[in-house]
């Protein structure tokens, strides 16, 4: 596949750029951005928590879009893209659910509360965990792939619910940039933008690594079948 060959070629460049962006963002977060006055140093969790949430959105969006395309046209590549997106999304969803309580323990005085946004994120985690468990334990038949695709599309409905939960139902989750949040200072904004860029690169790297494993797995499966066919032909002749 031409696209795969191009991606394979640009991958080292992407890897280097992502690593540089991550290092720059870490420098900006810890040495350039000031310490927030009310929350103190714990506010620096924000610089990884929000980009991780964005990656989570990106992963699950890719998973649901690819699942939709797979339902329209059952091409195995769409299915592999969907699983890879869900895997990366789920990892960062778990990270959001870990980093958020670490911040909240200091800022709110409690690690967890059943706030609408937090609860919706937890539900999203459960839905895509279900999706992944279905993929792991139910084989790789056409029927399973279609059921998983439907599940991925249904689970996606939770993403706008999470995003607009604060506006719709209030709750304790703070808003910074959107929906009337106070915004960030220029140094904080720079560190946050660098972190977003670094995380975007990280997402692309991880997504490609997971997709490449699945593409290689497909090539191995195909080759097994070819070897079997060739062996049968040999035995027949």
């Amino acid at each position, binding site marked *: 596949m031409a696209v795969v060959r191009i991606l394979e070629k640009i991958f080292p460049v992407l890897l280097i750029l992502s690593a540089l962006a991550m290092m720059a963002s870490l420098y900006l977060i810890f040495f350039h951005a000031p310490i*927030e006055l*009310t*929350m*103190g*140093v*714990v*506010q*620096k*969790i*924000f610089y*990884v*928590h929000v980009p*991780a949430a964005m990656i989570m959105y990106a992963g699950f969006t890719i998973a649901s879009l690819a699942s939709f395309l797979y339902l329209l046209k059952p091409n195995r590549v769409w299915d592999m893209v969907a699983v890879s997106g869900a895997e*990366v999304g789920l*990892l960062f969803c*778990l*990270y959001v659910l*870990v*980093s958020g309580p*670490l*911040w909240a*323990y*200091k*800022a*709110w*005085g*409690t690690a967890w509360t059943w706030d609408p946004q937090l609860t919706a994120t937890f539900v999203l985690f459960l839905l895509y965990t279900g999706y992944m468990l279905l993929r792991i334990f139910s084989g790789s038949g056409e029927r399973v792939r279609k059921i998983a695709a439907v599940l991925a599309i249904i689970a996606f409905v939770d993403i706008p619910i999470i995003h607009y939960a604060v506006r719709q139902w209030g709750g*304790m989750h*703070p808003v*910074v940039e959107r929906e009337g*949040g*106070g915004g*960030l200072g220029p140094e*904080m904004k720079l560190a946050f933008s660098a972190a977003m860029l670094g995380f975007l690169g*990280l997402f692309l790297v*991880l997504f490609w*690594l*997971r997709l*490449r*494993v699945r593409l*290689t*797995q497909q*090539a*191995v499966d195909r*080759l*097994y079948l*070819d*070897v079997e066919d*060739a*062996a049968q*032909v*040999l035995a027949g*002749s």
Partner: protein
Amino acid sequence: MKSSKDCIYPQRRRLKNGVVALLLAGLSLGSLGGASAAFAQDAPAEQAAPPAAPPAAPANSSPGSLATAIAVSSEVVTQASRSAQRQSREHARISGGNLTIAAYFVLWIFVFALIFLTMRRQRALNQELSELGRRMDVVFEDMK
């Protein structure tokens, strides 16, 4: 970044303490009014408020019972604030720096774990692929 809800828990705690204090003050002025008055006047409770007697209404409460109610409620507030201080001391034991380090540490653990597992699987698949290619070559050699 500033959130108006950052300190919601201490506020809630204070509000709760206030509500409890008010409730106790109300109870002191009401059903416990007699006993409280007796306590304030250093008299036996039975004498001031016999068990069969109906509870004293707030309107009938004397300045003594009011003083007792205030004393009781202030004691409740003191106890509650001590408890809140104890909780906040426990809470402050984990510093924000440690929580931040933990958050960044967990991030890199997650990322490197995924990369490590993916690379290990990729290496195994590459080996399998080259082994299959070698077997295919053998099969084609035999066919020739």
